[in-house]
């Protein structure tokens, strides 16, 4: 009998000993796929000391978890991980392989796709079904447009934007199952030397009620003073930035909000000169109320803002500050 590719395989990520949130978000995407095209959902976990996390995942989801335990991944290594995935994935007969659009997913997905002869759709934030066919949406042009993609191969590797899918709150009737496999593969071409821990989190950001964030649109370093003055009119406020400002050395990295920076959810997020690329918005979309100032009426930030100010911030912020002073 010909074996059909009938599974959605989620590559699980761990965060410490627990399942990383993105892995459960991927389960939501997998279930949307399953609704349209009946299939099995399986998890594949690759790493060292995977058993505890694998059991946690099986218990929480009631599903089948295959954990490849690799002494060689005591220190995570992409090349080794790829070889192991390449070895174990085909046996799970995947039609879709799901990962997060996280540093790990971005690192593995395109290469895995080439190795499996699969398609690759990255940064997916929505799925829709047209006449039974699956359509994946992914953003482009800084979030101004979305590209609709369809699978064209028997296997497609998909990465999902963190935060785009909501982890299902399901009651689990089954215990799930864990299958442990071990692997001794090791890549000879790359060696992990160690991990450098993150600089201490900026406490000010997590504690602030109001965050005023500056983006590349502030134009000059001098305009940072304007942002600081704006922040100072709000009690319990802090100043943050998008990545380009930190790259330029205008602000310290611990103040960066986004995928590779802090995740914040203040009561008010005031974005100044930020276009709203998804790598920024994943870090602030949970904010209570969002005000955005950009001179580009089409900026993606306006899609998630509660109040949209289309204006030049060099004119608008002083005008706003003048009103605050009047009082």
């Amino acid at each position, binding site marked *: 009998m010909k074996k059909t590719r009938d599974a959605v395989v989620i590559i699980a*990520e761990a965060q410490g000993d627990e399942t990383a949130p993105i892995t459960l978000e991927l389960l939501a995407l997998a279930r949307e796929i399953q609704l349209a095209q009946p299939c099995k959902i399986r998890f594949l976990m690759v790493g060292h000391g995977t058993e505890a996390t694998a059991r946690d995942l099986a218990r929480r989801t009631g599903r089948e978890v295959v954990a490849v335990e690799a002494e060689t991944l005591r220190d*995570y290594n*992409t090349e080794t991980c790829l070889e192991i995935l390449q070895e174990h994935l085909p046996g799970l007969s995947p039609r879709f392989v799901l990962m997060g659009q996280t*540093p*790990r997913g*971005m*690192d593995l997905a*395109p*290469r895995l796709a080439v190795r499996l002869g699969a*398609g*690759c759709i*990255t*940064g997916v934030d929505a799925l829709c079904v047209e006449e039974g066919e699956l359509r994946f*949406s992914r*953003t*482009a*042009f*800084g*979030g101004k*447009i*979305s*590209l*609709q*993609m*369809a*699978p*064209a191969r028997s296997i497609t590797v998909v990465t999902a934007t963190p935060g785009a899918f909501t982890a299902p709150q399901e009651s689990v009737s089954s215990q799930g199952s864990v299958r442990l496999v071990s692997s001794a593969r090791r890549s000879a*071409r*790359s*060696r*992990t*030397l*160690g*991990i*450098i821990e*993150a*600089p201490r989190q900026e406490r000010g950001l997590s504690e602030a*009620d*109001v965050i005023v964030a500056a983006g590349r649109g502030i134009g000059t370093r001098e305009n940072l003073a304007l942002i600081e003055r704006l922040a100072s*009119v709000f009690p319990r406020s802090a100043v943050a930035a998008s990545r380009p400002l930190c790259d330029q*050395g205008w602000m310290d990295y611990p103040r960066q909000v986004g995928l590779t*920076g802090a995740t914040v959810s203040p*009561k*008010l997020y005031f974005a100044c000169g930020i276009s709203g690329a998804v790598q920024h918005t994943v870090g602030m979309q949970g904010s209570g109320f969002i*005000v955005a100032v950009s001179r580009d009426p089409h900026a993606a930030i*306006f*899609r*998630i*803002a*509660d*109040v*949209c*100010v*289309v*204006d030049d911030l060099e004119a*608008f912020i002083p*005008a*706003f500050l003048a*009103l*605050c002073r009047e009082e």
Partner: protein
Amino acid sequence: MKILACVKQVLDSESVFRIRDDSDWIETEGDPRYGMNHPDEFVVEEAVALKEAHREVTVDVLTVGPHSASQVLERAVGMGADRAYHILTREEGYLAPFTVSSWIAGFAETRNYDLILCGIMAEDDMQGQVGPMLAEHLGYPCATSVVRETCRPETETIRVEREIEGGRRELLEIALPAVLTLQTGINRPRYPSLSNLLRAKKEKPELLDPARFPMPEDREQFLRAALPPAVRRGVVLEGDTEQKARELHGILKEMAFL
């Protein structure tokens, strides 16, 4: 040591564009501005800095794009790259990362580069796929999101720091030849110099026809471009600057933020 830097031309993010009637891609309105993909400025800087730090390093730059894309090659040579190559496509539009990476691999295959540098992501299609796919086509190891590198040509290795989850960094030693994708902020890109720009004007890039490389079959299908849905329906403030400021002030006061 031979380095290849891959650079892409993209539409400036503030240019006005709309989705074409056939939904096949975008079309620009007014006077569109194009420039080098922001992450690729770091790619050229890193390559040129390596050339300055080591002996006998040559830096080639390559772009895949329409005629106008030669602009980014000129900039790269202006920053100090040695030679420019242009795989000339007919028009703008969607090109699959698998196709672009296959062509770049076809170009690089016979040229024996020790190090190939790509940006972390193109600002327009935001795929983040070309670099890692290129590594696979060539059978090279690859590190993505690199924020620091120390190249050791004498031992044919490179040490890199790459950004991983939660602001942590992973330290790796990789055998050359290798592909790296560089994260923004790895360096401070320089401005092109006048003398290099003059050289760039004189020495035209070598043009290559994509037809000389195999055209891979689509691995996923691009259907159409569309406007994404709004997540929240926010109010757009109307009037002049003064009126907008007043209105926002009123809203924030009412919500007790002020």
